[in-house]
């Protein structure tokens, strides 16, 4: 029986935890299997949940979020017969962990391009949640994509705050959106968890475009959300559960090529995405896969060539 450990944001964060949950649910629905799950409440529970599930015979034990890397590195060696999955992690050196990380900057690059193309004011916005490197990583890819389309594009980037409350403050998200709109932004990319709900809402209210993140959020405001940067945590979880105990371990980076990241196109935003936009983005996607375009990761030297944080 597999087990799934959500990060502190909780499984319904409308973001990557929720994506993980969706993947697991799909697996359960399709196979009729069942899985254990826990929403962490405190830092100390990370190790606890890992051990408890491992001892209870859960296999594989799937974890979501980079914060699980550290506890995994101490717990996993104690349970060599159990396989672990670490999503958003790629730097551990433990044999029984499958490390899955996503090239969020590549996906963000694509939506950045779309933002720049859709913008009429040549000003686009980015709203992050808590100011952590991962979110800068998103913003950095986004800015590079936008600049690639239009070197003169203005990118306004804001973070919601410095405490975990920044993930759940839609009111602040709204105000940031309004502030960015007043500075001229007409497309705004939200990578801010629950705060993003406020961003998308206000963007829709004010008649500008927004870009969702992680899951497909196009349906939240049909015709108002330009696209969503997809991060297929659900696929990663689904595949891990599907593989079960036979799962391969090692480091897997899911980028555009692996369809681990991408942008969402469905009936809700079909009218917003012009053919020209679509072809440019698809071209860039291919170029990134082929190595013709290289998107710089924020992690490479903790700074971004296209944006200052």
């Amino acid at each position, binding site marked *: 029986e597999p087990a799934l450990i959500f990060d502190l944001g909780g499984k319904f964060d409308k973001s990557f935890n929720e994506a993980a949950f969706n993947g697991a649910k799909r697996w359960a629905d399709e196979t009729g299997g069942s899985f254990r799950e826990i929403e962490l409440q405190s830092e100390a529970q990370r190790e606890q949940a890992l051990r408890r599930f491992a001892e209870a015979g859960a296999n594989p034990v799937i974890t979501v979020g980079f914060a699980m890397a550290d506890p995994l590195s101490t717990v996993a060696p104690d349970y060599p017969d159990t396989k672990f999955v670490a999503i958003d992690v790629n730097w551990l050196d433990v044999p029984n962990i499958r490390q899955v990380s996503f090239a969020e900057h590549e996906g963000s690059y694509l939506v950045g391009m779309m933002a720049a193309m859709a913008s009429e004011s040549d000003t686009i916005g980015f709203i992050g949640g808590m100011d952590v490197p991962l979110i800068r990583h998103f913003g950095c890819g986004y800015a590079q994509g936008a600049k690639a389309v239009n070197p003169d594009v203005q990118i306004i980037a804001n973070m919601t705050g410095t405490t975990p409350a920044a993930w759940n*403050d*839609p*009111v602040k998200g709204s*105000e940031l959106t309004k502030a960015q709109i007043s500075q001229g932004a007409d497309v705004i990319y939200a990578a801010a968890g*629950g705060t993003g709900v406020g961003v998308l809402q206000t963007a829709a209210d004010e008649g500008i475009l927004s870009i969702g993140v992680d899951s497909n959020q196009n349906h939240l405001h049909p015709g108002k959300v330009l696209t969503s940067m997809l991060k297929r945590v659900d696929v990663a979880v689904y595949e891990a559960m599907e593989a079960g105990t036979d799962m391969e371990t090692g480091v897997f980076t899911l980028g555009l090529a692996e369809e681990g990241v991408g942008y969402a196109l469905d009936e809700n935003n079909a009218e917003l995405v012009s053919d020209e936009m679509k072809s440019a983005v698809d071209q860039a996607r291919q170029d990134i896969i082929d190595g013709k375009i290289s998107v710089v990761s924020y992690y490479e030297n903790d700074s971004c060539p296209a944006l200052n944080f």
Partner: protein
Amino acid sequence: MDFLTIIQVLDSTIRLSTPLLLACLAGLFSERSGVFDIGLEGKMLIAAFFSAAIAAVTGSVWLGLLAGIASSMVLAGLHGLASITFRGNQLISGVAINFLAAGMTVLIAQDWFQQGGRTPSLIGGGRFTPIELPFASALEEVPILGPIYSELLSGHSILVYFAFAAVPATWWILFRTRFGLRLRAVGENPAAVDTAGVSVVGLRYAAVAIAGVLCGIAGAYLATALQAGFVKDMTAGRGFIALAALIFAKWRPWHAMGACLLFGFLQAIALRFQNIDLGGVVIPVQAMDALPYVLTVVILAGFVGKAIPPRAGGEPYVKER
């Protein structure tokens, strides 16, 4: 900073101040009657949830508002029960109410809507819409005053106007009516009220109930006017900021408005200006994030003297000679 930016920052100030102001006035009524209330946060939160939930289910924002007020009043009643009837510790009761609201909202939301502690998004009549003041669009072109009127003053939801109207109303009630006189007296010296033949318990319950109503409106404003639904913990500490504003204002209505506007303004500034580049030295975003709090401390230390709370505040009333 150009004129329009100023207008926009001030516009944002008004929106951000409104929930603070409502909660602050709620605290003012309660604390003026001698019942300390650190449960503003919890009452706002539960009201935010129930207003959004009922508005989502019925499609009527007004029913939502009523539900929000009712739920906030239930918690206010609990606070009254603990701190007035059973003469318990008012601080503990407030802490408990905050926890209770944080837990119950998500628990109920999950049980009810299965959307991970959220309500469905509100559409149409489920939200408070902005009100255009008369001639707002006509006057837009008038220099200076036009934008002030049509951008800054016009276009808020009715609850914003209510909140600001509540300030003079609160002042009037407190200082110009019999009820206000008694309310202030009971917060200063309940024995004086008691020996004057007026019920201390009744007055305090009334004050706590008013606080419940105002917190209810504040919560409804967050969920149904500023936002289109409830998200867990969406009050994000605003109850505590309102409490700070209340102390800052030394428990006076007009000052409360000033304090809330100031806090709102500081937040608006911090949201608007991040990563300020001062000739090569980039102020980190964290510094801007902390700015409202730092400035609050500076202002407190520099300009505001000692804040003396209502004399009987925090103490349950026990008869003695």
